[in-house]
């Protein structure tokens, strides 16, 4: 059974759908409401306009997916696969194409692997998670939300204020620390971020903390010196705690366009990014670039931000995401 059918049957209210799963579905559906809007209208009018499948239809489909910020190469690739699949299955009705489209999107993300969106926890001792990204994507806020969630699961959490550059960044993390009720290790503005990490790691080990979340300053990926600084931060962490950082999360703003690819490549090079946090997905942006990132360089998405509240930062679930994007297709369609 294809992915499309699985989702449909899940929606049909079959018993195997648990309450939590349904809640997750609602969460995605609500969070992606604005995102879905334009995409769906376009798709629906497209499928209404065409009575048979031809080159023009594919051309327009291509445009629609490009508008969702899915990279040009990935879209071209995706449309190619879709054409092939349609030919192979002998599909002639555009309605049928919808089903294939959803299945293919799913495949592009999964790539035949089991994708786990959980954080890698160190079973013996301190887990260190490093947060990286360009300026203004929401690193600090994401840290606060994850800290809140981990604390709720009974973990002891500490934050390291590694953004010593931007005015007010340390205060921002401190305010969050107070709100969430977790300690924050910081030095004064302008200090070497590696020194902050060193202190924080020492303190976290001494206090037997479960998880240390490390904030860093936003940096554009083409700034060589700043990327070197980040490399050093990572080296210090590696040296102080063997096996750390256990996860390095690249925070990407959902409104980001094609530049997201360049971000992922550069940060992967310097810090071996292990996952992506896609923030601000509750706007109209579609964050399609993360599909391209997954398709072209393989980094999976771990979290998506669907709202302002701490619990709105949820583990990424490709099924829910695609469902969230195409919810109405599943409900109204065939």
């Amino acid at each position: 059974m294809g992915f499309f059918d699985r989702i449909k049957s899940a929606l049909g209210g079959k018993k195997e759908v648990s309450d939590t799963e349904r809640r997750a579905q609602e969460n995605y559906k609500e969070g992606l409401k604005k995102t879905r809007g334009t995409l769906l209208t376009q798709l629906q009018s497209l499928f209404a306009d065409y009575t048979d499948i031809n080159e023009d239809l594919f051309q327009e489909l291509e445009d629609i997916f490009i508008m969702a910020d899915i990279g040009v190469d990935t879209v071209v690739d995706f449309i190619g696969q879709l054409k092939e699949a349609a030919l192979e299955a002998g599909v002639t009705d555009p309605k049928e194409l919808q089903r294939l489209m959803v299945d293919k999107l799913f495949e592009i993300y999964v790539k035949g692997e089991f994708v786990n969106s959980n954080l890698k926890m160190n079973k013996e001792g301190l887990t260190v998670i490093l947060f990286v990204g360009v300026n203004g994507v929401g690193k600090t806020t994401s840290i606060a939300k994850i800290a809140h969630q981990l604390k709720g699961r009974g973990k002891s959490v500490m934050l390291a204020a590694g953004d010593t550059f931007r005015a007010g960044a340390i205060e921002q993390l401190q305010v969050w620390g107070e709100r969430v009720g977790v300690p924050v290790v910081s030095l004064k503005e302008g200090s070497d971020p590696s020194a902050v990490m060193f202190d924080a790691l020492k303190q976290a080990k001494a206090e037997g903390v479960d998880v240390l979340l490390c904030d860093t300053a936003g940096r554009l990926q083409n700034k060589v010196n700043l990327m070197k600084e980040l490399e050093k931060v990572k080296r210090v962490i590696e040296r102080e705690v063997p096996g750390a950082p256990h996860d390095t999360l690249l925070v990407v703003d959902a409104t980001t366009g094609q530049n997201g690819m360049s971000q992922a490549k550069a940060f992967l090079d310097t810090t071996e990014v292990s996952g992506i946090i896609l923030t601000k997905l509750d706007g109209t942006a579609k964050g399609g670039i993360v599909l391209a990132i997954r398709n072209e360089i393989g980094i999976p998405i771990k979290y998506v931000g669907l709202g302002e509240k701490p619990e709105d930062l949820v583990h990424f679930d490709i099924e829910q995401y695609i469902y969230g994007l195409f919810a109405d297709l599943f409900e109204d369609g065939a």
Partner: protein
Amino acid sequence: MAFETLSDRLQSALKTVTRKGKLTEKDVDVMMREVRLALLEADVNIKIVREFINEVKEKAVGEAVMKSLTPGQQVVKIVNEELTKLMGETAEGLNLASKPAVFMMVGLQGAGKTTHTGKLSLFLRKKEKKNPLLVACDVYRPAAVDQLKTLGKQLGIAVFDKGTDANPVDIAVEGIAYAKEHGHDLVILDTAGRLHIDENLMGELSQIKKRVSPQEILLVVDAMTGQDAVNVAETFHKELDLSGVILTKLDGDSRGGAALSIRKLTNVPIKFIGLGEKLDTLEVFHPERMASRILGMGDVMTLIEKAQENFDEEESMKMAEKFMNASFDFNDFLKQMKQMKKLGSFSDILKMLPGVGNQLKNVDIDPKQMARTEAIIYAMTEAERKNPDLINSARKTRIAKGCGQSVDEVNRMIKQFLDMRKMMKQFSKMDPKQMERMTGAMQAGGKAPGPGFGGGVPAKKGKGKGRGGFRF
């Protein structure tokens, strides 16, 4: 530099036609497909891409182009013109007439509002002799008020805040009253970042607008934004009637297609661009210059302006005289190098020169080269500097020892200097038409000019010619 990848792609697309003496409709089609992809990869809005492609195609296959002697270059010219048109032909200023003038900064979270509140105040204090007051209306993001206060302290610019418990509308109103009392003639309101779909917060912005009637409402947009940029701008514009856009983080490697899209689809002009984390990295947006920068045709105007800011006019005139009659000596060369350094890094300057940007992508420019050249000159006697012809081999050996470099190195430098002097003399005798051919040949040949060349730009301007030399 921003736009770099876009210009790479566009240039390679355009190259397929520039060299051709004859152009068929099919040639144009092939090229336009590449141009389409290049623009889409640069995040240019898809509606605009479609329109743009159609317009260029229509003009490019027109009879005048096909029959002209250089059809390829004509097409490049059309693309350049259309790009400029997309971004809004001329630079637009700010409305500073009222006392105090009130500006409102709005935008999504993380676009760079607070930082650009700081940058803009510094810019206007410097350029317009304003006495700005920054008002902290973002009471939501933790430490946003602290951030603005810290920026104010760094810049020595006053900040008005009421902590985080006050209502942003009241803060704005009181801030303006405070400005009037304390003689500030410019007030910049830093507001909270929000998603454009957040109705409560958008309502708050409308209320601030209604209460304080600002002269400018500036939308701050991240240059890395994708296809959604237009949605964001349209929503803010509908709600607030924007007067301008500030495009930030253009110092990244994003292709900045949002810049092309916003102006066209909302008709709101882009007024400034932000080019770094430091507070003095704000520039006025010049569409015509940006278009030629995208196409890799250089940005001579910005270079000239930068030069004017940093060069002494009289000094430049004297230098120009010397160029013309070849009395240019090592002392002048030294002076010139010092001035060049004020313009910024050498590779940045070269990128602004037509035809150079793209060639230089993989060339490593050694910033120490200039220092080495300087060292050689410092090792010369005053007489040698004034009269380079004096330098014989014994003197060369001494100079080499004096500056710690090989005689070869000294020879090379002196030869370069003499070549340059000769070239300058030729330039000065040329009529504009010849010059045009010459720059054309340089673009095709792709030779990067040696150090010291850049000084010729202001000098030429001083003589009232030169601009014509930088067309295609």
